[in-house]
């Protein structure tokens, strides 16, 4: 499903974000990417949707070498990936419902089916009652749940989250992880980057531990 083979990411100036990282995550797995700040977690996650390209090595997603994909092919790769960020990346000039509808605007779904899907995703994260609200009116945990709803509305096969619980209290963070676990139960591959060892311990999944750009045991 997701496979890194001797992946090196070198930034302009020579600094290495990743140093020959290799691992593999099978379909339907739930894995954590752990490590301190600057360990290379975000770099690793950004290589999967080709936000960054590897300097060397291969990143395979569903058998596709994403590092070699042409620019025009990237949207089609990203539609099959659900992305959740620490800063949520929501649109604050639109309602909660419109934010979730965004990925469906370029789907093949009819308007009615898209609306049904968006409401189902909001229901799944417990925000259906707030669909008309502006994201700015939501709490941090609710905003993160909204970002998850937007990430899953297209029914991606992989869900990738970069520090989704970083700014949340322990209760909200656990609730977010429970949502990821629920999606994983229905077959979605989940990859979450976090520095919260407590959370990792509670969910006891496969852990890819990074330190200074390299995988460590």
């Amino acid at each position, binding site marked *: 499903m997701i496979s890194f083979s001797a992946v090196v990411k070198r930034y302009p100036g020579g600094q290495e974000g990743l140093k020959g990282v290799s691992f593999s995550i099978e379909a339907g797995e739930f894995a954590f990417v752990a490590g301190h700040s600057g360990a290379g977690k975000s770099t690793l996650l950004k290589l999967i949707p080709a*936000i960054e390209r590897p300097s060397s090595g291969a990143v395979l997603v569903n058998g596709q070498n994403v590092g070699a994909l042409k620019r025009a092919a990237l949207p089609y790769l990203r539609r099959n990936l659900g992305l959740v960020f620490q800063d949520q990346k929501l649109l604050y000039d639109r309602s909660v419902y419109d934010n979730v509808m965004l990925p469906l605007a*370029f789907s093949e779904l*009819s308007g009615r089916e898209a609306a049904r899907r968006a409401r189902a995703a909001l229901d799944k994260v417990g925000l259906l009652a707030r669909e008309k609200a502006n994201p700015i009116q939501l709490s941090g945990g609710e905003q993160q749940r909204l970002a998850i709803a937007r990430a899953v509305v297209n029914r991606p096969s992989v869900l990738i989250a970069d520090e989704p619980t970083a700014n949340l209290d322990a209760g909200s963070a656990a609730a977010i992880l429970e949502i990821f676990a629920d999606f994983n139960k229905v077959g979605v591959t989940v990859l979450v980057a976090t520095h919260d060892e407590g959370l990792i311990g509670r969910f006891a999944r496969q852990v890819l531990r990074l330190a200074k750009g390299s995988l460590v045991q």
Partner: protein
Amino acid sequence: MKTWLRQHRQAIAAAFGKLAAQKSAAALNALVIGIALSLPAGGYALLSSLRTISVGAVLEPQLSVFLRAEVKRPEADTLGARLKTDARVSDARFVSREQALKELQATEGLAEVVAALSHNPLPDAFVVRPKRTQGAHSTDAALLDALASELRALPGVAHVQVDSAWARRLGALAGTARLATALLAALLAFGLVAITFNTIRLQILTQRAEIEISKLIGATDAFIRRPFFYLGALQGLAGGLVALVILAASLAALNIGVSELAASYGSSFRLGFLEPGDALAVVLFSAALGWFGAFLSVSKYLREIEPK
């Protein structure tokens, strides 16, 4: 196909939404574009109106050879035969004094003047059309003058007038004005493209976050570009419509003075508005330029925005 149409509908709605969100800025842009476009459109309308005058005029040079009042018809016929055999003359048409009076009577505003005359003051005349000089655009002016001088010396000739010089000058002036209008249109078209380019650039910068997010969640470049293209085209379209309104209002104002002036010459001449096809062309041209400005802007700036 259904999805494609839906996406275009959404893009048009988004473009209208952006215009509605910035009403004052959109109105000012339309006004600026409208003013810029109304200048060449006005020039074109003016030239079209003037063409109705110059079309009626004879642009080919010709000479009017007026005979003395005492010249009898046989002498006139002899003169006519001589003119027709001249190698420099293409055609010589006899216009009798009676026929000239009839033509004068038929001229707008002169019927009453002619009716007031006690006798026919007009002479018999020949209208002489010289042969064109090979390779020249028109008959050489010097040759024309030389021919006129020779004809003046002929027995029975009272006066020779080189006709149509004014019409040729008007034609040349109209040609220069047409060229100036075309240059002005091209220059202002660049201006319109620049205005749209800048407006769309600002829109792209304003929507940077949205574009970034759209790219992250799998929107294609075409999907992201579309609303900006429609926005540029709508802005151009609005500017084109404003230009027509400005032109119509300006012509209406000018026509007050023009019709008074024309009436003093016994004419009902008025400056006309653009033909429906030309008016439509102004609006479509403006929309196309708006689209082009948006295309240039989007091509330049959209690639610079990538998710981080």
